[in-house]
């Protein structure tokens, strides 16, 4: 449905996005994950034909973004970071206007508008002036304008930013309800949002794709033994000295989350470079040092860690 092939975009001498490629199937919700300034918005702007790509290409619903941009624009509903609302218009007049410029035939205007308002639950506000609506309702009107022409592709850029928890949940529910009818790209830097709603995730950092796949595949891909938790009795400095001396260990941190043990028992979090299984090494070194090894196990990494891992890893390399 959406195919992006080694897309890159430069402003003057600044490269915002470099060699990005990914595919989104029809009806799928794709999570576009990345810290602020990672190039998410730029990519979205290229997809919605707002900005021309510097190199590479993107095909939406079979139409190339640059050559047949008019066709692409008819098929895309776009909710940018800040919803594009005219504060002085009423909700209904605003949606009519958007429907018209999105090419909805005048016959279906009324029906499409009602449907969009139903889906986003703002029907009761139809005659209110947008300027007077609360932030949550404004976000909903933004969403409604993206839906009003029943686009085959829906691009939502940080749809829940700035909302209170209750509104966030409502918006997420609305987005989930749209699954299947549209191909949705959800840009966000909030990880739980992605893990709950998205079928597939693409992680982007400093303009490049650093990871791609379903939440589960990502987790398994990075799971084995990088992070260990060891419970050891003995003088903490000496032990810390000992542990950090092991080959492949990146850093040693006290795990103060665990409940305090009696005596001089202390729990440590040992992070090792990926691909190094250091469990037996650690056990051997502690025993030789004459300290008491109480517990040693690998930590289950959740998405947050994966995300931090991927983005920080990038920093070292």
């Amino acid at each position: 449905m959406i195919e992006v092939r080694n897309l890159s975009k430069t402003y003057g001498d600044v490269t915002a996005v470099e060699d990005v490629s990914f595919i989104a199937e029809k009806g799928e919700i794709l999570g576009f994950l990345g810290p602020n300034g990672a190039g998410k918005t730029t990519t979205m702007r290229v997809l919605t034909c707002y900005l021309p790509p510097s190199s590479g290409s993107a095909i939406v619903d079979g139409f190339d973004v640059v050559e047949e941009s008019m066709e692409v624009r008819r098929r895309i509903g776009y909710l940018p970071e800040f919803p594009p609302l005219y504060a002085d218009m009423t909700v209904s007049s605003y949606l009519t206007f958007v429907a018209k410029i999105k090419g909805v035939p005048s016959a279906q205007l009324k029906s499409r508008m009602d449907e969009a308002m139903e889906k986003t639950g703002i029907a009761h506000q139809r005659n209110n002036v947008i300027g007077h609506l609360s932030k949550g309702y404004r976000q909903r009107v933004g969403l409604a304008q993206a839906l009003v022409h029943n686009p085959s592709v829906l691009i939502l850029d940080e749809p829940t930013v700035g909302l209170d928890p209750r509104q966030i949940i409502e918006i997420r529910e609305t987005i989930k309800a749209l699954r299947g009818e549209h191909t949705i790209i959800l840009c966000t830097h909030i990880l739980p949002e992605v893990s709950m709603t998205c079928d597939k995730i693409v992680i982007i950092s400093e303009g490049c794709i650093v990871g791609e796949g379903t939440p589960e595949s990502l987790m398994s891909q990075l799971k084995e033994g990088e992070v260990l938790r060891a419970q050891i009795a003995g003088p903490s400095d000496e032990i810390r000295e000992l542990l950090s001396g092991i080959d492949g260990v990146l850093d040693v941190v006290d795990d103060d989350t665990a409940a305090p043990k009696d005596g001089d028992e202390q729990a440590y979090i040992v992070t090792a470079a990926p691909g190094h299984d250091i469990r037996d090494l650690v056990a051997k070194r502690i025993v030789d040092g004459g300290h008491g090894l109480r517990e040693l196990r690998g930590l289950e990494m959740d998405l947050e860690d994966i995300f931090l891992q991927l983005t920080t890893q990038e920093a070292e390399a």
Partner: protein
Amino acid sequence: MKAYSTLLSLAGAAIFLAGGLAYLLNPGEMWLVLVNVVLGLAAIVVAGLLNPDLFRQYSLWLNAVWGGITVLAIIVMVNFLADRYPQRLDATAGKLHSLSELTVESLQRLETEVQALAFIENGEHEDLESLLKQYAVHGSNFSFELVDPDRDPERTNEYGIRSYNTLVVESGSSQQKVTELTEKQITNALLKVVRNRREVVYMTVGHGEKGVGSQELGYSRFKERLEEIDYVLEDSLFLAREGRVPEDCAVVIIAGPQSPFLEPEVEALRAYLSQGGSVLVLLDPLYEIGLGQLFREWGIVAGDDFVIDTSGLGSLMGLDFTTPVAVSYDKEHLIVRKHRRGVMSFFELARSVHLVGGKEGYLGAELVMTSDESWGETDLTVLQANPGKQTVKLDEGVDRPGPVPLAAAVHDSAGAGGRLVVFGDSDFASNRYFDLQGNGDLALNALSWLAEDEELISIRPREPGFNPIALTERQSAWIFWLSVIAYPLGVALVGFFVVSRKGRWSLRELATVGLGIVLSLGVVVLVNYISESYHSRFDMTEDQLYTLSSDTRDLLSRVDDEGKYVSVKTFMAETDGMRFQDTMDEYKSTTRRFDYEVIDPQKAALVVKQYGIRERGTSIVEVTGDGEVQSERFTEQTEEALSNAIQRSLKAVERRIAFTGGHGEGELTQVDGEGFSILNGRLKEMNFEIEEGLRLATGVKPGALVVAVVAPSEPFSPDEEAALRAHMERGGEALLLLDPGQPTGLEALLRDYSVELGQDFVVDLSGIGQLLGADVSVPVVIQYGDHTITEKIASGTMGFFPFSRSVSVDDLGGGMNGEAKALLITHPSSWGEVDLSPLTGEGDKVEYDPESDRPGPLTLAVAVKADADSAAVEGDMARLVVFGDSDFANNQYFGQQANGELLVSSLRWLVEGEDKLSIPARIPRFSPINLVGNQGDWVLWISVFILPLVVAMSGFVIMLRRGYETYSAGFVSWLIYSFLGLTFFFFAQAVVGLSEGSFWQGEGFLLLTLISAAVAYGLFRRDHRVWPIAVGLAVANVGLGFVAIPNETLQLAYAGLFAANACILIWIKREIVPTKVHAPAAG
């Protein structure tokens, strides 16, 4: 209760303050003030009891208020002092308020006692007093006194003072009154009182000299300034007639002569000079005036050149290189000793004047020198060359290199003390240049030196600073480029650089945008250029104000067909004659082969000289085509004049004029007063081809020819008359200027054309000409016949016809059709004297005897247009103009008022033929406006109040309909402000009432002040109990407005305002009074 204590204390303070202010305004009314002061203090005390810690609050307030009061007091005091003891610092450049050199010197030389009495309104006039004080300081025996006419009536009557602010300067018996209390006037009065002698200065006439007229090149300014110092200037010395210089003449001035002096005149001047007389000669380049020999005897030579000055100093005043500017002056000579180094004098088109050392005992000095970058250009053809070409360069050896002397003065100290001053230019003392920097003083000092009146030689008091900003072309162009182009462009570039460096625009993107813009600009410019040349105009005005007449359009299409090019030069300032310029714009847009240029005579002296332009508003049309240029000249600024001029040039038929010879006629080339060289010059300008010495006997060649007979002394033979008759019958034209004396031999021919030649000479007792020295033998005409020749002459301009015969006409008889009209009609008190003896010098007495002489009014000239039966061209008419005199056209009289004009327009009428275009001038129709009574007010109310308010209000209503609930909050704040304003207004009324002692108005308004303050506070607090009071107050105020405010329109607005407030209060009732009542928020 606490809240109410603060309110009470505030009310008490207000009452106390009202009482205090009332006392300040009018200390008289004690008891009312006391009442309020006590009441106020009582209120404050009670409030203090109610709420003890009130005073702590107060102390905070007080020291804030106290600071304010002290500052205010200081400001008031400072102003008071500044007003009482003003100091005046005279920072003006020209030290306008200190005395000038002339005044100081005259005061120091005062021998006799001089007293000045100033009759001033109530005896006080600071400026005059300080001025007279300065006079007293410099002049030891000068005293003054300020008199108040009301308090000292007898002295006022004694001096016959009729109006305030008159100063009497008195010394011994003579006294002078001055009404314009300026230093210049007072000093002049002072000088007159001391010197009390009158001198007469004569200006010679008869050689085309400049007179004392007020036109640009006249000497009226010079005459005024001379009269201020008791010199009377007469421009009436006709040396040829008087033979010698009159006794009472202090100085003879010869100003810009154009024709040479006769031998007797030079002899008279030489005699006058040798007996100690003084002569001031102002020459001009180009003219030979026959005084060279006399100058050489006195050691002065006038160069036969004209001075070119390329220093650019002239350009400061907008003058070009033909106007030399003198900056260096002789150090010792009395005339120019006082001219400081920097003062400039301007000489338009001057010639050089050198000192070559004459007889011993003659002390001479060259007074004025031009700068080094100037030289005496000997090639005078440049001045006469056809206007286009201007090649002026310093050729070594031939021209005199700079600096060039422009004036010289010689004093015969050994002999009888004669003095001679010669200037190389006459324009520098004319009205146009008199007031410029050094010119005026130069002329006045020269005259004072000549009249041996040295004490008057000084620098006159300055008018307020004459320092014009004058940039040479180079500087102004440089400033234009810097300020209009470079500077803004630089700023834009910096801005652009900053923007692009931030990386938001890459160079490539900018280039594409830039290219797009430039391309589109190119397209736009191209489209405009095309539309500029191929465009059509539609005149939508009803009276077709901006459409040229069909005749003009045909004319212009003829210009196109014949491939001719028309260029018009109009001599006037850009700003006047706008309608004429509009008309010429129409010509320009009708055809591309027409162009016009407006030349300001002030700025282009050389061009004016080359075209010989005499008055503003003259236009020159030049039609160039197949190699030769036809030029025409016209003065009226109308479409008719312009089109006719173009048509005349187009016709380009060779206009020929043949002057008959062999009967002692006047000489065209003779340059003295009797000659007709000036007429000759004007004929050349009118593109006439001139033939002289035509022998009528040999017959007149056919073709367009004007036969001119000028002042024949012998009669014509019959066959000459027949030849002339044949010429006339072929539709020819003739111009006859016949003097009185003997029959001319053409009487029969003239009688056939119903023209009666009087055998008399006209005597004019009307005395009209007396002012300008014309005696009874010179009839003066101010009434003109109704004919195209005389239609352009403004009524009241005079025509002088010395020794003229009468020429009368009665309607055309003998089957000829056409018209015959009289042109010049003399004054009724003139008559035709048949006894011609006085003419030949025997009899001298002239009086009217009824039988023989013909009574006035008489006609001196006629114009006849009659059928020509054997005319070559069908419908061509014979034209004839006969004047009863010829002297009116000679060099001496040609330039006098209407004379020249008459002759030129007669020639033009003779030549114009039948196809003269007559195009009515198009003036917009008469459509006045008459708004009476209240119609004016209606317009005011509709256009200024109702319409704008309706529009603004409609927007307001629409907004309200959209239910902006924030507006009601807006309304409440509006109400608070209006009630606060009301409080202050009532407070002011209360104070006024108290100060006037009226209890009801004072206390009543005080009470209203408190109520409206409470309402404002209540609204602010949204206290619902205040709502009813507010509505009541608003409604009451509508009525109160008509009482409290004097001006009725303001009353209307005030009442309207509070009516609106009342409605608003009702409208937003629920905002203030909530539907469910809850306890009001305590204070």
